[in-house]
């Protein structure tokens, strides 16, 4: 059970049970849909972008604890960020979930380090992020974790 407690850390279980910023955002001016066809996980990300910053952000959808907690945590991290900062944060997050290395600065993102020993779950952890980045780019195509760049 040690690997599993690594995967399902308190932070994750907490975000899964009490997701932050969940639900449609009535004032959103950007929306993107993400899906993970392998699992059937779905995620919508709603953004209100003001200037070049994310003024508000929310998500909804369905999926496993990893994907839901990740999307929830992401919304708390992206609020107030620029697109460039969001991209950088995603890179950091992607590094954490694929290598298991803790982030340089203390961050809740580190809770996802356990994912790297479950490669099949990396796509769950990144689903919300894919959708958010697509929404920022204004890309109307649904994000899919099956893209070649994943």
């Amino acid at each position: 059970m040690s690997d599993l407690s690594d995967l399902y850390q308190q932070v994750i279980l907490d975000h899964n049970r009490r997701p932050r910023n969940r639900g449609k955002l009535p004032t959103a001016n950007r929306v993107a849909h993400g899906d993970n066809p392998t699992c059937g996980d779905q995620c919508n990300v709603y953004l209100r972008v003001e200037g070049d910053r994310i003024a508000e952000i929310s998500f909804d959808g369905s999926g496993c604890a990893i994907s839901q907690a990740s999307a929830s945590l992401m919304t708390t991290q992206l609020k107030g960020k620029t697109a460039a900062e969001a991209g950088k944060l995603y890179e950091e997050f992607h590094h954490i979930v694929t290598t298991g290395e803790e982030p340089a600065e203390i961050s809740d993102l580190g809770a996802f380090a356990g994912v790297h020993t479950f490669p099949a779950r990396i796509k769950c952890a990144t689903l919300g992020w894919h959708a958010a980045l697509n929404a920022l780019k204004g890309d109307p195509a649904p994000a899919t974790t099956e893209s070649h760049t994943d």
Partner: protein
Amino acid sequence: MPDWKKIRDDFPALHQQVNGHPLVYLDNAATTQRPRVVIDTLSRFYERDNANVHRGLHALSMRATDAYEGARARVAKFINAAAPEEIIFTRGTTESINLVASSWGSANLKPGDVILLTEMEHHSNLVPWQLIAQRTGAKLRYLPVLGANVEGGLDLAQLDALLTPEVKLFAFTHVSNTTGTINPAAELCAKARAKKIVTMIDGAQSIGHMPVDVRAIGCDFYAFSGHKMAAVTGIGAFYGRQALLDAMPPYQGGGGMISNVDFFESRWKPTPERFEAGTPNFADAIALGAACDYLDGIGRDEIARHDGDLARLAYEKLSVLPGIRLLGPKGERGGLVSFAFQEVHAHDIVTFADEDGIALRGGHHCNQPLMKKLGLTGTTRASFYVYNTAEEIDVLVTSLRRILKFFAGS
């Protein structure tokens, strides 16, 4: 009574530890394990008789041809087809249905025609019909399933009204891979036949689990996969009634299926060769024949009882878990149970169960439209075969309790 304990010993893959626990393999609806005799038939063929079939006049080629055509006859007998020529070898259920949809469909469907499906079809018995409908201008229509919190079976009361004159073909699954529902195949075919509607049955979940007699059922086509009936991957087949096959154009073109080729046109061989272009997967077909022998050695009546009993036992034992929603009928059912919890997603369950050595499947089971209809995003499925035991169900229930506690308690 078969000696189930001894049968379990026939399957090498079962005797291993996974994450420190004895493997409990409950993912049989996805693919079964293969008995030693099937694996050995394959190796032995490659070690002794391997050569390309047909058009070969040397010893190995004649041996291979005899073994391959012998496998065809064996499969014909397994489902009581009238002749070996009614068996076409394919990669599996999916290719079988694509072949029939494309070949029969392109020759028989026109704009305005209707293909009747059911709302419980696997994507493999749904997308091929969408594709041929697009190509021919035919339309799809669905026999509904009974909604959420009822049994999830077909709403048979609606069938007569849906079998209108525009309906040219009715395709349905024999056993649902998601709910475990066993459809009354013979009854459905009789209704269709009375209106001269062609019938196609998806036998992926029935073929390895119960006696199947295509003539007693009265269907026109019956498709299945070897890997779900103790045989190997890459081989499957379908049954087609001779008269229909004779009138169907080829599906793929190439070596082995032509009687004459000129630069600008070709003539086709009769069935089954017409539908088996290129070098067939003869070695795996021979392994499929061995699997037929193996299953008949146990007795398919016995297997049906065994798998169904386990599924009913699992249904009963699982039903007491807090917050569980169980799909499909309570009584008579195929050898699987499928369930969902409000609080814990199927993938989390599968990951936790794996830690206890239990192999489950979670998700939409290639059944997205049905999931949407039932208001679910996925289920966890435990599916049984000849080697599973009542004790394994206890292991599953214990593991599930622990998972529920982890997610509720922490």
